[in-house]
């Protein structure tokens, strides 16, 4: 290492190029290498909405953002330190997210007249020559040409050669950030174990990129990012949707029930179906239904049959599932519904993130139809929250809604995964005997107001359940007004009573009393956490609490909030949690809302805190 090394505590890199440029792979390889080195990492991919958007256009830009550091990082970050732009369109889309003075590495061939035209940039406005990048450090490399040169005589076709140019960029960045090539070499060897020529080509280009850094003077500087103070242990990388799938399987194993997953493909939830379908050897029964309605209905059926019955979807799909979820509430059968939220309303912004389905989760059914609502706050936390949602469903015989979103679903972070015996056992006792002399009462309650689960196949417990209002205990059809009001209260009390069986709300950081508490939920966690840390660094003693349980709220939430003069609630919606908190606790909480399909930035949060505390 030369004396030109600068030590940084955190870096945000965005890899951006055309969909076909392999930026996702480049980004995830750099991430894995960083994680193995002990950096804390957080990532977020950003794909074009169209599957095959025209090459070279703005619509076709695919990006991968990586935040890594020698300090803890809690989100994929907002403004980038470094941008890799493989073509003009990629630069055009991402320029506004680079810090002034930041580093931009461009593939010059991606700025030729054709690419400029595709990106709708006039030739005289070429950003590489018109001075518009003067406030940045720009490194221009003709990646395409250098890749071709490295592979001269390899016998590979133009297409294959072109496809390996992302390895050149990766090699160059490894040089710049002082990383070893070993991990990626291992990865390539596995990936192309059967395609020797492709493997050789990729390795050659990777090394060429690294040497290019070493031998040319394109960059004056190299950077070092040391390992982060992570709790000791064994880690893996995990994406949010993957964590949900694993959480479901884990809950099935720990409850001793087979897992049923009925769903209909929808962005951004489909990867849960894909992941689960890979694990049939756990006995997972994944069922791709004809529509969202059938998916939910199949879950009701499987739950009646005694399975851990689950489904996932996104806003428009949840809207279709509503009626059958209401049936689940009425029947009081356990089931877990995961909503991977995206921008709405209607089809909205399928590949963008939003938190605007909270009120739908709580109230989006006809009649008084309460169910527990939980929210995951990060990709790794999606595992814990999914597992907890299953526990509540099974222990309280109720549908449970778990909220994730596009940012959690596709984001990734290191996960200090548990061993199976560290996970709690979920107790399930199927009813085997009559429970009232020689009668079986399917709606008789235990001390938690939960009812017995008697599944078909159990002799002497034959009974009928249905969507019509039922008589207390017997479950027989009842139109009696007194009984209806009683049952409405009973179903609600059961859900509210869950507050006694969940942990109290804890502060995430900051003083226990004071001027301002930032209260968040869901995927804003990392950004709010970092925003609060930065604000405290500047002398503003702000506190942060993040809700996992939204229905019911933790029993101490009121007390906790009353310790602060002001409550700030940032949300990616128009103020849905805000409304709930104001209504229930009668406090003038302040909303901070962003509805752009994009996560909050750390500075946005920090500045809002300072504005309120000044």
């Amino acid at each position: 290492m030369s004396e030109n090394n600068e030590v940084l505590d955190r870096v945000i890199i965005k890899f951006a190029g055309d969909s076909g440029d392999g930026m996702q792979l480049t980004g995830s390889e750099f991430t894995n290498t960083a994680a193995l080195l002990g950096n804390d990492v957080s990532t977020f991919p950003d794909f074009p909405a169209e599957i095959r958007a025209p090459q070279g256009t703005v619509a076709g830009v695919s990006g991968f953002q990586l935040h890594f550091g020698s300090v803890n990082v809690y989100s994929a970050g907002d403004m980038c330190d470094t941008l890799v732009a493989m073509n003009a369109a990629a630069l055009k889309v991402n320029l506004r997210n680079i810090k002034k003075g930041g580093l931009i590495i461009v593939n010059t061939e991606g700025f030729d007249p054709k690419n400029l035209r595709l990106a709708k940039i006039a030739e005289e406005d070429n950003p590489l020559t018109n001075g518009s990048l003067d406030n940045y450090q720009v490194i221009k490399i003709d990646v395409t040409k250098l890749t071709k040169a490295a592979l001269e005589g390899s016998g590979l076709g133009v297409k294959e050669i072109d496809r390996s140019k992302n390895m050149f960029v990766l090699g160059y960045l490894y040089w710049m950030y002082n990383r070893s090539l070993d991990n990626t070499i291992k990865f390539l060897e596995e990936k192309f174990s059967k395609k020797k020529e492709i493997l050789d080509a990729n390795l050659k280009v990777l090394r060429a990129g690294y040497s290019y850094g070493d031998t040319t003077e394109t960059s004056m500087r190299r950077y070092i990012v040391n390992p982060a103070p992570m709790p000791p242990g064994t880690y893996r990388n995990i994406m949010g949707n993957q964590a949900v799938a694993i959480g479901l399987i884990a809950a099935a194993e720990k409850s001793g029930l087979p897992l049923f997953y009925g769903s209909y493909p929808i962005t951004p939830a489909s990867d849960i179906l894909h992941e689960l379908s890979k694990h049939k050897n756990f006995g997972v029964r994944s069922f791709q239904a004809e529509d969202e309605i059938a998916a939910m209905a199949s879950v009701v059926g499987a739950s009646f049959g005694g399975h851990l019955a689950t489904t996932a979807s996104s806003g428009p799909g949840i809207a279709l599932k509503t009626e059958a979820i209401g049936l689940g509430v009425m029947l009081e059968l356990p089931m877990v519904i995961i909503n991977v939220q995206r921008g709405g309303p209607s089809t909205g912004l399928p590949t963008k993130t939003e938190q605007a389905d909270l009120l739908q989760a709580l109230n989006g059914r006809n009649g008084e139809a309460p169910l527990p609502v939980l929210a995951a706050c990060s990709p790794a936390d999606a595992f814990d929250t999914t597992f907890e949602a299953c526990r509540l469903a099974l222990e309280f015989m109720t549908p449970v809604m778990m909220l994730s979103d596009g940012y959690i679903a596709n984001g990734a972070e290191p996960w200090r995964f548990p061993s199976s015996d560290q996970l709690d056992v979920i107790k399930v006792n199927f009813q085997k005997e009559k429970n009232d002399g020689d009668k079986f009462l399917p709606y008789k309650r235990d001390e938690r107001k939960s009812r017995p689960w008697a599944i078909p196949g159990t002799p002497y417990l034959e009974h009928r359940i249905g969507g019509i209002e039922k008589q207390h205990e017997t479950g027989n059809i009842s139109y009696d007004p007194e009984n209806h009001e009683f049952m409405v209260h009973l179903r609600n009390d059961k859900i509210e009573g869950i507050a006694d069986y969940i942990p109290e709300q804890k502060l995430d950081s900051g003083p226990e009393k004071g001027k301002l508490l930032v209260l968040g939920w869901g995927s804003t966690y990392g950004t709010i956490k970092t925003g609060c840390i930065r604000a405290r660094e500047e002398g503003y003693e702000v506190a942060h609490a993040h809700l996992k349980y939204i229905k019911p709220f933790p029993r101490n939430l009121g007390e906790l909030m009353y310790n602060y003069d002001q409550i700030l609630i940032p949300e990616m919606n128009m103020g849905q949690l805000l409304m709930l908190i104001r209504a229930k606790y009668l406090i003038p909480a302040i909303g901070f809302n962003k509805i752009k399909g994009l996560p909050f930035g750390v500075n946005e949060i920090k500045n809002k805190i300072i504005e309120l505390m000044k």
Partner: protein
Amino acid sequence: MSENLTVNTERPKMTSKDLVSDQEVRWCPGCGDYSILKQVQTVIPELGLNREDIVFISGIGCSSRFPYYMETYGMHSIHGRATAIASGLKAARPELSVWIITGDGDALAIGGNHFIHILRRNFNVTILLFNNQIYGLTKGQYSPTSEEGKITKSTPAGSIDHPFNPIALAMGAEGSFIARSMDRDPAHLKEMLRRANVHKGTSFLEIYQNCNIFNDGAFEIFTEKKTKKQETIFVENGKPLVFGANQEKGVKLDGFKPVIVDIVDSSNSVNDLWIHDEHDRVKAGILSRFFDNPALENHFPRPFGVFYTESRSCYEDELNKQIEYAVTKNGKGNLDKLLRGKQIWELA
């Protein structure tokens, strides 16, 4: 359907009476549903099933009250979704004997999508579609099987909807067992119920059911003595298509074209007639099209019996096979391995 089950010998043998629940039956007096309930309760004890393994699932409508009257497991669910709920249950618990009770509105209007998809997936369940050509529970609007021109509360000037032919629809949806019967012919209905239950796969039985309140006499011409023999044709596998007051008429196939012939005093004899073959998809298709308005001249008689049946693998069996294969290939799932994933690193 019974092949996965082992009979519970500890429990006294089931009788029809055991299948009567303690709930008061609330259909209108004279409704065709009573007869269907009675025949189902009569047939089930003969089928060698355990009572605890039987599940009746219904949607919404008059017929969908059915599960409440059966002393078995049951679910009275939501409109149109019984088929989808049953699919989930059957995928989860292939060993159960699952019966779906539905109506023309429930299965063919609001639940049409689930209906066609369960047929193509071929879950091993039995669907009893009570077709009364009207919406009874909501007090008399036209249904997807009501005839054109039908005057109802929602169509005072007559319905302009062309009706579904449920049998043809089931044929098109790849049904593996397709049959029709009627409430007023207990012997035939019982026989069809037995056959539907024995068939492995989705058995679809359409039952003409009289709604004496909102659509009285809709099927009179097929069910009443005076006209029944003229207007219906009861098909049986391997037997010629014969009908008429004195069995004097028959149906002959002229290429793909069915023709009604006189077998008594013309040049045709019974030997020239179309012999019913339940396994012939093409002929079943033609038969399903015997759906003329009986008011038309030279109309074909309405067929009853099993139109078509085929043996095809069931969804739940294939699902089980995939699970077994995955276990053989990758070993039984190991949670710790799953939690660890492919690439891990240690931090001290």
